[in-house]
C-alpha cells in the first residue's frame, strides 16, 4: 500500500512552445526564402522592391509547405500555409495605416508650433513662415461642426436602430434597406443636397449649420447600422424579462435594453464621429473657410481642419505645405483622442462611480 508522498510543486513550463530547433527551422525557412527570391530576381527580368516582395511571398509559402509536409504530412502543411496567408493579409492591411501615420508624423511635425493652438489666420497668409498664425479657428470649427452633427444624428440614428430591432414595425424591411443604401452615399452628394435644398433657396450664403446637416446625413446611417448590430446582440430573454415584469415596451427598452447595450451604443456614436470628422467635400461647399475664429454655427463662414488643410495645400509654397501636414497631424490626433475617450467611457463599469 502506497501513501501519497508530498511532491514539491514543479515550476510551470510550456511544453508546447517552440524549441530552439523549431526557431532555427523558422529562421532557416526565412533565410532560404530570401536567398531564393534574390536568385529569382537575379536570373529573371523581374526587379524592384515590389517584385522582391511578391517573389518572397511565394517562395516563403512554398518552402514552408514543403518543410511542414516532410515533417508532419499534408494537413499540417496546409495549416502552415494558411497561417502564412493570414499573416500576409494582416500585414498588407496594416501597412498602409502605419505608412500613413508615419508619413503624417514625418512631414507634419516640422509644422508643429505652439502658436497652432493659440492663434488663428486672420492676419496671416498660408505662405507666411511656420510659427506665424495658427489653426485654433479650424480646431474650433471642426469641433462645432462635428458636435452639432452629433447632436442631430445620434438620437435619430439610435431611434432608427430601436425601430428596426425593438418596434419591428411594418416598414422594418424597407427602412433597413434604405439605411444600408445610405451608408454608401458619397459625401459630395450629401453636400450638394444641402447646397440645393438649403443654401441656394434660403440662406444664399455659407454657414456652419449647413455643414453640420450634411455631416449628420452621413453620420445617421453609420450610427443606425452599428447601433442595430449592437442591439441585436442583446439576448431576447432580457426583453422578455422586462416585459414579463409588467413594463411597457418603452420602459423595458429604456431601462433594460439600452443600458445593457450602453457601451456598444457609445461605440456606434464614435464610429459616426470618425466617419465625418475629416470629411472635406461638403465642408468646402457649405461652410466657407474663414481664417478667423467663429463660435457661431448659425451664421458666418466657419473654418475647419479639412478646409485649412485644403487651402494650405492649394497655396503651394513649402511653408504652406508644411502647415497642411501639421493640420492633418492635428486632425489625426484629435480623432485618436476621441476614440480613446469613447473606449474609456464605454468600458467603464456602470457600478463604479
Amino acid at each position, binding site marked *: 500500500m502506497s501513501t501519497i508522498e508530498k511532491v514539491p510543486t514543479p515550476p510551470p513550463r510550456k511544453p508546447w512552445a517552440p524549441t530552439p530547433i523549431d526557431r532555427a527551422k523558422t529562421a532557416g525557412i526565412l533565410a532560404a526564402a530570401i536567398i531564393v527570391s534574390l536568385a529569382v530576381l537575379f536570373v529573371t527580368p523581374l526587379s524592384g522592391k515590389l517584385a522582391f516582395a511578391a517573389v518572397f511571398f511565394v517562395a516563403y509559402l512554398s518552402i514552408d509547405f514543403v518543410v511542414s509536409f516532410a515533417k508532419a504530412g499534408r494537413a499540417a502543411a496546409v495549416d502552415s500555409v494558411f497561417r502564412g496567408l493570414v499573416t500576409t493579409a494582416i500585414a498588407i492591411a496594416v501597412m498602409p495605416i502605419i505608412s500613413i501615420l508615419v508619413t503624417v508624423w514625418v512631414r507634419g511635425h516640422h509644422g508643429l508650433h505652439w502658436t497652432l493652438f493659440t492663434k488663428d489666420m486672420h492676419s496671416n497668409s498660408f505662405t507666411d513662415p511656420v510659427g506665424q498664425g495658427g489653426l485654433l479657428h479650424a480646431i474650433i470649427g471642426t469641433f462645432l461642426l462635428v458636435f452639432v452633427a452629433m447632436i442631430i444624428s445620434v438620437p435619430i440614428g439610435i431611434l432608427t436602430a430601436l425601430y428596426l430591432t425593438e418596434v419591428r414595425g411594418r416598414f422594418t424591411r424597407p427602412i433597413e434597406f434604405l439605411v444600408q443604401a445610405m451608408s454608401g452615399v458619397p459625401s459630395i452628394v450629401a453636400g450638394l443636397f444641402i447646397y440645393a435644398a438649403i443654401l441656394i433657396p434660403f440662406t444664399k450664403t455659407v454657414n456652419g449649420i449647413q455643414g453640420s446637416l450634411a455631416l449628420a446625413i452621413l453620420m445617421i446611417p453609420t450610427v443606425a447600422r452599428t447601433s442595430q448590430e449592437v442591439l441585436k446582440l442583446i439576448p431576447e*430573454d*432580457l426583453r422578455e*424579462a*422586462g*416585459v414579463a*415584469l*409588467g*413594463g411597457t415596451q418603452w420602459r423595458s427598452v429604456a431601462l433594460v435594453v439600452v443600458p*445593457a447595450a450602453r457601451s456598444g451604443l457609445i461605440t456606434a456614436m464614435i464610429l459616426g464621429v470618425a466617419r465625418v470628422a475629416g470629411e472635406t467635400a461638403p465642408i468646402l461647399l457649405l461652410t466657407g473657410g474663414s481664417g478667423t475664429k467663429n463660435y457661431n454655427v448659425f451664421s458666418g463662414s466657419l473654418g475647419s481642419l479639412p478646409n485649412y488643410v485644403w487651402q494650405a495645400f492649394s497655396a503651394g509654397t513649402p511653408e504652406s505645405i508644411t502647415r497642411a501636414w501639421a493640420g492633418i497631424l492635428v486632425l489625426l490626433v484629435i480623432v485618436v483622442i476621441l476614440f480613446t475617450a469613447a473606449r474609456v467611457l464605454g468600458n467603464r463599469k*456602470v457600478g463604479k462611480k
Partner: protein
Amino acid sequence: MALESEENQGDEMETTAAKNSLSDITAARLQKQPGNSALGVGLEARGVHAWFGEKHALSNVSLDFWPGTVTALIGPSGCGKSTFIRTLNRMHEFIPTAAMAGEVLLNGEDIYAPGVDVTKIRLKVGMVFQKPNPFPSMTIAENVLAGLKLAQLKVENKDDLLEECLERAGLWSEVKDRLNTHGGALSGGQQQRLCIARALAVRPQVLLMDEPCSALDPGSTLRIEETISQLSSTVTIVIVTHNMQQAARVSDYTAFFLSDGGPGQMIEVGSTNEIFSRPKDERTENYVTGRFG
C-alpha cells in the same frame, strides 16, 4: 410594505391564498378531481389553442390552477408545455407570428378580453425563465426592484421589500453584504434565485416557471426546489420541467402533455401522486416510468 396601487387587493389575496391553500389541496386530493373548479380558482385555462404562423402548436388545453398550489407540466420536448404557460401571462404574443384561441381566466376575467391592460396581467402573473437572466446593467438590489421601476409602482419601504423578496427566494443570507454589486458575479443558481426575487417584488398572484432549473447543477436545483416549496403557500406556481423527479418532488398537481406529431395536447392531469403511481392513460404511464421521452 404592500404596493400602493394594489394595497388592499394584494393583502387580501395573500391571506386568502394562504388560508385556502391547505384546505384546497386536501379537498382536491380527497376528491381526486383537480379539474373541478367549484372551489374557486385563481387561474383557469379554457380550451386554449396556440399557433405559430400556420403551425398548430397546442390544441384545446383546459386546466385550472389552484391558489397556493404547485402545478407541474411535464412531457417530451415540443409538446407545447412552454407555449402553454406563455399563453397564461400573454407572453405568447411576443412572437410575431403567434396566434391563439380560447380563454384564460384570471380571477374569473378573461385576460385576452378586449381592453385588458396587458402590463397589469403580467404584474399578476409573473414569470421565471429557463436561463437565469438578471439585468446586466443593474446591481443585485436594482435587479430585485427592477419591476417597480418598469411597472412604475410606488412602494413605501424599498429596503424591506428588497430583504423580503430575497429572503423568500432563499438568497438573502448569500447576498446581503453585496447588494450593490453586479448580479453577473453570482453563480447560475444564485442568478436564478435573484430572478425569482425580482419576479416576487411586484407581488404576483401566480408565478410561471419555464424549466427554471434546466441550466443549473444539482445543488442549485435543490435550492430552487426548496424555494418553490416555501413560496407555494403564498403564490400559485406553475412549473414546466423535463425532470420527472423534480415534478414529483415539488408539485401538488401534474399535467402530462404530448404531441403525436400534430399539435401538443394535454393527455392527463391529476394530483402528482396519482399521475406518478396510478396514471389513467397508458401514454402517461409510459412516460413517467421512463419507457419513452
